[in-house]
């Protein structure tokens, strides 16, 4: 049976791609961010996942406003990154796990989530850069991937509680999957930031730190808030924390903290990193 070994949560910012390409890990601006990752690399060496299920949001690479799914699950043998228009290097393709993807889709429809299934799906920086941060080695990513895309672009967005329950159904599907796989779940995006409007530059350190702490001990804490309240507390893009809630929902209620880091700012973003283990 497949086992979930833990969860990894991290912000995604296009500029991280430029910093990796230019080897700026030791640069004073970037070091406090990149210094968060060696403990994660050591943990990954211990738990050795085969597959990662990645909850993220597309920024207008695969999906446009002509067709905007609330939830979409990748079911492709391979996922390609592509030019997003702002000059960060395109990363090599990722191997999929289509059988596992379809089991997720079956479970989600059974639980009345009704996602869009995608046998072709471009993956953007919200997917590729977290993977590059977690597995920085040259060449292809060493785990197979299942992308789960949540709409954080066009309101109405799915409620926080709904994203958490989506994650619970994903966790059930993985637990029922009859193959000896070690699975890690990943949630990307946030934490507090706002790119648009007169409130651009908004950051809320207290909320971010409370949110990260809640994922360890009180994982449904943030589901008390409406989408509008989350935007008010975290910014128009801080609401990407929905991806973290989805990933957290896939994990068992009790987890242990492996590592955390929090740094302000990367670009306009409060960058969070959290890794929790299930003991598997």
């Amino acid at each position: 049976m497949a086992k979930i070994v833990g969860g990894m949560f991290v912000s995604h910012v296009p500029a991280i791609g430029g910093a990796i390409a230019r080897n700026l890990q030791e640069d004073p601006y970037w070091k406090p961010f990149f210094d968060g990752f060696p403990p994660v690399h050591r943990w990954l060496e211990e738990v050795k996942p085969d597959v990662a299920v990645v909850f993220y949001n597309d920024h207008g690479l695969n999906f446009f406003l002509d067709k905007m799914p609330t939830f979409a699950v990748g079911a492709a043998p391979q996922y390609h990154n592509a030019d997003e228009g702002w000059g960060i290097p395109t990363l090599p393709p990722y191997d999929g796990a289509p059988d596992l993807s379809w089991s997720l889709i079956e479970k989600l429809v059974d639980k009345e989530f009704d996602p869009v299934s995608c046998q072709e799906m471009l993956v953007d920086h919200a997917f590729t850069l977290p993977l590059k941060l977690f597995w920085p080695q040259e060449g292809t990513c060493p785990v197979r991937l299942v992308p789960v895309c949540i709409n954080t672009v066009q309101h109405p967005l799915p409620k926080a509680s709904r994203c958490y329950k989506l994650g619970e159904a994903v966790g059930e599907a993985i637990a029922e999957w009859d193959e000896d796989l070690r699975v890690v779940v990943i949630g990307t995006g946030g934490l507090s930031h706002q790119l648009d409007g007169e409130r651009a530059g908004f950051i809320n350190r207290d909320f971010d730190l409370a949110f990260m702490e809640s994922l360890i001990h009180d994982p449904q804490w943030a589901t008390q808030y409406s989408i509008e309240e989350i935007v008010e507390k975290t910014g128009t893009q801080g609401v990407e924390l929905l991806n973290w809630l989805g990933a957290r929902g896939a994990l068992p209620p009790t987890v242990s903290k492996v590592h955390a880091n929090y740094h302000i700012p990367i670009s306009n973003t409060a960058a969070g990193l959290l890794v929790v283990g299930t003991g598997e």
Partner: protein
Amino acid sequence: MAATAAKRQIPGTTLFDGDMAQKGYALNKMCFSFNHADNRAEFVRDEAAYCARYGLNAEQAEAIRSRDVLGLLAAGGNVYYLAKLAGILGLDVQDLGAAQTGMSKDAFKAMLLAHAKEN
């Protein structure tokens, strides 16, 4: 009449909802096209013609012409797509932040850093 009722007001913030998505469709579709280098080059060659080809209205075309970030948002632009336009113009998100808040870029960056020191 607005398609959605009773919106929560968050200062300096507009939620990109169905009303905005309809209003900004042409503008955002043009920005979505900037995923392709050929399209970016064509925009740079003749901005006005490129805007016209995507059917931008006068408000949107003027906001493009005058590099008015708040104007682009008011005309229905979504920042995830506008970011691709910013890439063509060589602007990063801190340039956008400065333009929208009326600060200098240095002041905007200092404001971001100050958040790290809040208790």
